């Protein structure tokens, strides 16, 4: 199998910039990615771009060509939409194209403008990732759907809000050195427990923020990277995708994510690794409970035990398998369409030793990025490995 090289990564700061258009955000991320890669724009053969709520937030559909233009690239462009897994899906499609020889250089990424909608507007926009007829019209919000999963988890496996709070505390701690994170502030368990409820049992500090931001990657074939002497030690060696029924109530288990399991198993097999080989991972912690479900789906924790991973220190920066060293969606921020590709950027930098938190994973060779859409009716998982 041909490897796919991560030649360059670029991220905007994630945060609260309501006035900035997504085209401006993506332009900034793409400039950084091109500078990092040393690849000329003219070599880009296509743009694969993730975005979720552009129609609602900016009255802007058809964002593919708009973003190619913003990045200064003359090439066909496609927007991928899989809710919060939009740019993870774009990355996966790019990997397939580069492997099958169709392309040698692709610009991949995503952007989302959200804060201009305000909290109520963004809550409404995020809810469209659920089944409109059978969930949203019953009052299900995005946090509400994860709250339903959290309560189901507590009922089936035990655990309590305090366990989840340790996940938020961990991810905030990890973001302290991430200058692009939305929150660079330490929090304590008591802060999480005392925060106002959003959808019980989840409170404000169990939830990722509403964020603006963009991510961009220059991905190339192995042969292009070799011919052009690119400094690109990190490769995407495995890709997987899973799907599930749209509505949470149609899933066999309300506290598991089989789509993520399917994606993870496929990606591990594709890369020829197993969960035990994973040194570090960025997982889709849109809510604290989501990190638990992700760890279990990826076999990084046994079913029913992921709830204690942060509290017991297994996933903290100095734990066996540090999770979300970027701060995760929780503290880094979650500009929905940008998230999947941003996770690839973070894992790449962690493995290459270029991340502020790389010291915590010295010698790491294998990383994973897990991106989930809705209540995980869509999921992508990628395995990244570094030449040592």
């Amino acid at each position, binding site marked *: 199998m041909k490897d796919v090289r991560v030649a360059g990564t670029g991220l905007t700061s994630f945060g609260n910039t309501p006035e900035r258009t997504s085209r401006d955000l993506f332009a900034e991320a793409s400039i950084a990615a091109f500078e990092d890669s040393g690849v000329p724009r003219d070599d880009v053969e296509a743009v694969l771009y993730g975005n979720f709520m552009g129609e609602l937030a900016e009255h802007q559909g058809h964002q593919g060509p708009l973003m190619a233009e913003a990045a200064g690239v003359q090439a066909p462009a496609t927007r991928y939409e899989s809710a919060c897994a939009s740019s993870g899906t774009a990355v996966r499609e790019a990997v397939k194209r580069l492997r099958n020889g169709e392309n040698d250089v692709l610009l991949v990424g995503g952007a989302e403008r959200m804060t201009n909608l305000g909290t109520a507007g963004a*809550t409404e926009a995020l809810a469209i990732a659920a089944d409109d007829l*059978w969930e949203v019209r*019953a*009052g299900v919000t995005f946090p509400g759907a994860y709250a339903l999963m959290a309560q189901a988890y507590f009922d089936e496996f035990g655990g309590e809000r305090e366990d989840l709070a340790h996940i938020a505390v961990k991810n905030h701690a990890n973001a302290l050195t991430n200058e692009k994170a939305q929150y660079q502030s330490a929090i304590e368990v008591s802060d999480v427990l005392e925060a106002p409820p959003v959808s019980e049992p989840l409170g404000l500090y169990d939830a990722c923020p509403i964020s603006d931001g963009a991510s961009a990657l220059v991905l190339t074939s192995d042969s292009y990277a070799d011919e052009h002497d690119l400094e690109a030690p990190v490769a995407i060696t495995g890709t997987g995708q899973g799907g599930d029924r749209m509505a949470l*109530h*149609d899933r066999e288990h309300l506290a598991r994510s089989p789509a993520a399991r399917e994606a993870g198993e496929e990606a591990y097999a594709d890369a020829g690794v197993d969960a035990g080989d994973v040194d570090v991972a960025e997982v889709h912690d849109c809510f604290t409970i989501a990190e638990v479900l992700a760890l279990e789906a990826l076999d990084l924790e046994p079913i029913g035990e992921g709830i204690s991973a942060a509290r017991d220190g297994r996933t903290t920066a100095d734990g066996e398998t540090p999770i979300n060293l970027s701060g995760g969606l929780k503290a880094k921020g979650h500009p929905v369409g940008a998230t999947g590709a941003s996770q690839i950027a973070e894992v790449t930098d962690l493995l290459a030793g270029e991340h502020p938190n790389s010291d915590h994973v010295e010698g790491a060779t294998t990383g994973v990025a897990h991106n989930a859409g809705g209540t995980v009716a869509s999921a992508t998982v990628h395995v990244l490995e570094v030449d040592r």
Partner: protein
Amino acid sequence: MSDSERVPDAGFDEWLDAAEDGKGYYLECANGHGSLPPRRVCPDCGSTDLEEVDLPETGEIQTYTVTHVPTPAFEEDAPYATAVVDFGPVRLTGQVVGTDPDDVETGLTVALEITVSETTDERVIGLRPA
């Protein structure tokens, strides 16, 4: 969404009409899989032989949440309890009515009762302790 001239969603609105008359139903395929309308194909097995079957009178709450930060469509309804209810062949998500949200718990037996949003006057799938 308070426009009373709203174009109906075929299949879904008829289901709400039936449920309001106490005749809630689900779709059952030839292999016994339950699903919700509008639907032409069984999502479990691909059967296109779907028939309407009466929804069991009551179901059991499998999980629930009390939402304090709603979408604008439920601004005046919050806080409200939402629950996933197992009716046997099919599950439904709805709002628990007729009880304090704080008294909702897993295992509670409820019956389907269509209610109305205080914010929009739109019909909402409701669940009343039975």
